[in-house]
């Protein structure tokens, strides 16, 4: 045991159950970081889109012009698809000469469906991060316990147990807990951060929907009068 301590040797010398757990955790870490980066990019983009769309929406243009512009786009953003869902429902019901209440109920239903769909998209993978954040420490701990059991079992044949005969095994085993924590901490932080951001976005969508409905209500009243 005179060789210098290295991460690689610690992992490579571990017994196979510990090794399986360590490799599993490392893969989980890779997947979790992929999700974190992907979610981070997607949520930042969603926030930017929301602000850009609100600027565009309140620029004083006619609602129909805005609608025509947006429906030409091949890949509408989240908030744009909410707007399109609400406005197309309004158009459709207006053409059928429905009364104001029926139009408003229809628009509300259409926008709610659109917002829910976008929320599902935003919350994609967040459940995975939450699960990983809460279970990775336990998986790591499990690996450590197995490693410690093994290292103590190897002491059975020795009459004098010294620190030097137990320490390498325990040091190997503890690597599993370290990796478990290493996986869990970023996952938990990311989950909390992204949940808060999804909340902000959902509030933004909801308030936009309320404003849209009040505008359409006024338009509908004006048309009737």
């Amino acid at each position: 045991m005179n060789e210098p301590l290295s991460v690689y040797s610690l992992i490579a010398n571990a017994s196979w159950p510990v090794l399986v757990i360590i490799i599993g955790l490392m893969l989980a870490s890779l997947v979790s970081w992929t999700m974190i980066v992907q979610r981070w990019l997607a949520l930042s983009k969603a926030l930017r889109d929301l602000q850009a769309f609100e600027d565009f929406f309140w620029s004083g243009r006619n609602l129909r012009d805005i609608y025509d512009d947006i429906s030409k786009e091949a890949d509408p953003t989240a908030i744009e698809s909410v707007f399109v869902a609400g406005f197309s429902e309004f158009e459709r019901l207006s053409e059928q000469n429905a009364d104001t209440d029926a139009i408003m109920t229809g628009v509300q239903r259409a926008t709610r469906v659109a917002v829910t769909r976008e929320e599902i998209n935003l919350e994609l993978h967040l459940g995975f991060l939450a699960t990983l954040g809460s279970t990775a420490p336990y998986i790591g701990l499990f690996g450590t316990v197995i490693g410690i059991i093994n290292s103590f079992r190897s002491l059975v044949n020795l009459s004098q147990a010294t620190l030097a005969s137990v320490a390498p095994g325990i040091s190997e085993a503890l690597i599993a807990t370290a990796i478990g924590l290493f996986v869990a901490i970023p996952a938990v932080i990311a989950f909390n951060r992204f949940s808060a951001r999804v909340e902000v976005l959902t509030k933004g969508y909801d308030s936009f929907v309320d404003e849209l409905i009040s505008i359409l209500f006024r338009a509908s009243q004006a048309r009737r009068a």
Partner: protein
Amino acid sequence: MKKTIVYVRRYAIAFVVALVFHLTLFASLQAAIETLAPEPDKIIIEPKPLKARLIRLRPEVTVPVPPTAVSSPRTSRPDSDAEKTLTDLEDEQEHLERLKREREARLAELRDRAFKDAVGEELTAETLDAIEDLSQVYVTSIYLSVVQNWSRPPSARNDMSAIVLVELFPSGDLNTAGVIESSGDDAFDRSALNAVKRAAPFEVPDDLALFESNFRSFTLNFNPQDLLR
């Protein structure tokens, strides 16, 4: 197919970023551990566990063993019973104590008689025999108490032997103990000294002449003969 492309486009950047992050982290961790690693001159010697229980003591008082009950094979050849257990040792001590009391009574009687015969006259052969018997009892008792208190270090080997010079007070308390011939292994020498210190106070004869001749100072040879390696 188109869906796959969408997924690849969505996750490719994220995956590459995650992979690069992990590789950097692993490399820097490795570098950190290497710089923080202890100096290579620190040599860790793995202790070799031993199963052994016996020492052989060679006291200076090498009294020819008279054919009495004391010189039963057990006491006179201590290195033969390697598997001697603690209870055996305790039984033996009880036995020895009984013998010792008997012998002391006998010695006192003899001394009284000799004193009455003539002060300063040479001791009779009978008396000398009794004295030798008695000192053998004490030697064995000292031997046993030291054996019981000796815990050998893992570094002990069969061919090691340390000679310890022990000096006692007439009360049986330890005056000094020192290694006069080292085994070459510090831990072994220390364990021998500790055994002597823990075994003290010793049982010594009340007879001052006997004490002065044999127990004021004597050497003990610590030698684990029965070790596995």
